[in-house]
C-alpha cells in the first residue's frame, strides 16, 4: 500500500491549496493505484487546512470513476478536524451529484 505524504508533495506548507499539484498527485499516484484495485493512504500529517478546490482535485475523479469502491480503497490519514470537515463536504456533494444522476 502506498502512502502519499501530501505535506511533502505540496512543498512543505501546511496550507493545501494548489489544485494543480492536487491534480498531478491524482493523475500520477491515486488513479494508477485505484485502477489496480490497490488501497492507498492520503497522509495529511502537518496539513492544517485544505481548500475545497484542493480536496476536489484529489478525490473527485476517483469517486466519479470508481464510486463507493474508491472510498473503500482510499484511506485518509492524520486529518485534523478542519481537513476532515472539508473532505466530508466534498464527498457529500460528489455523492449527491452521483445520486442525482442515477435518480
Amino acid at each position, binding site marked *: 500500500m502506498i502512502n502519499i505524504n501530501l505535506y511533502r508533495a505540496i*512543498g512543505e*506548507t501546511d*496550507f493545501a*491549496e*494548489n*489544485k*494543480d499539484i492536487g*491534480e498531478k498527485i*491524482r493523475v500520477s499516484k491515486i488513479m494508477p493505484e485505484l485502477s489496480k484495485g490497490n488501497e492507498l*493512504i492520503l497522509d495529511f500529517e502537518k496539513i*492544517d*487546512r485544505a*481548500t*475545497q*478546490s484542493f480536496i*476536489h*482535485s484529489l478525490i*473527485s*475523479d476517483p469517486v*466519479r470513476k470508481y464510486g*463507493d469502491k474508491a*472510498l*473503500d480503497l*482510499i*484511506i*485518509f*490519514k492524520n*486529518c485534523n*478536524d*478542519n481537513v*476532515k*470537515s*472539508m*473532505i*466530508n*463536504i*466534498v*464527498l*457529500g*456533494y*460528489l*455523492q*449527491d*451529484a*452521483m*445520486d*442525482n*444522476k442515477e*435518480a
Partner: protein
Amino acid sequence: MHPIVLSMIAALGIDLDPKNIHIEKLEARSSHYLVRMGLFRILQLETETSIQEHAPEGRFIPLKQVKTSDELAEFISEMIPLLHSDSEQSKTIGYIISELGRNVLEHSLSESGAILCAQYYKKSNTIRIGMADTGIGIKRAINVSHAAPTDLEAIRLALWPGITGTTNKPGGTAKNAGAGLFFIKAIANLNKDFFVLYSGSSFYKLLVNKGKKLKLNADPFDDRHSTLDNLPYWQGTLVGVDLSLNQTREYEVLLAAIRDTYYRLRKTKTAHKKARFI
C-alpha cells in the same frame, strides 16, 4: 481608497506602454499611499514622491500581479506573515486569496493574470482585499455550459454552489466543482463581512447579515444583497472582500454551515458512504 479600486487601476494600466499612462498631479498624501501600495512600480512609472520604505508587515500587501499557479502559491505563503493578524484570520485570508486567484487563473483567460492587493484598516480593524482581472468576464465563462443571458444572471450562477462554467454536469469536473465563490460568499456572510463582485455591466453586493442565525443560501439573491446593472462595462471581473478581524467566526463553524447548505440542496436523502479516516 479600497484595494479593489487600486487593483482595478493597476489592471487597466498594466499592459499599456508606461509612456501612454499619465497620472494627474496628486496630493502628497494620496501620492504617498499609491507609491506605498506599489501602483507606480506595477505600472512601471516614475514618481517624484519618495517614501521611506518600511517593512509592510501588519499593514498592507502591495499590488501584485499573479500569472501562474506557482506564483499564486508562492504569493500566499509570503503574504500570510505580512498581514500580521492572528493565525486564524491569516488562514481565512489565505483561503480567500487562493480560491479567488485560482478562479482568475483558470476561468478568466486573462493574459495579465490576477492583480491583487490588500490593506489593514486599524480604525475598523478590517482587512480589505481587492482582486481584478481583464479576462473574459463571468458571463462568457459561465455561458460555456449554462445559459445566463445577462451579466447579473451570470454572477448569480457563479455564486451558486455546484455551478461552474466548465460543465453543466452535477458535481462539476475533475478540476472544478463550482464551489469557490460560494465558499467565499459564505465566509463573508457568516462573518458579517463586505463582499462585492463586478463583471461586465453588473455588480452584486452582499449586505451585512444582521441576523444572529447562521444560515447560508445557495441562491445569492436570497441573501441580503443589492445589485446594480447597466454600469460602465468592466471587461473581466472584480472582487472585493472586507474581513473584520473583530468577529471572524471559527473555521469549523463556517464549514458546518456550508455542509448544512449542501445538505439542504440534496434531492435524495440516501446515506452517503463515509470516508475512512485513520
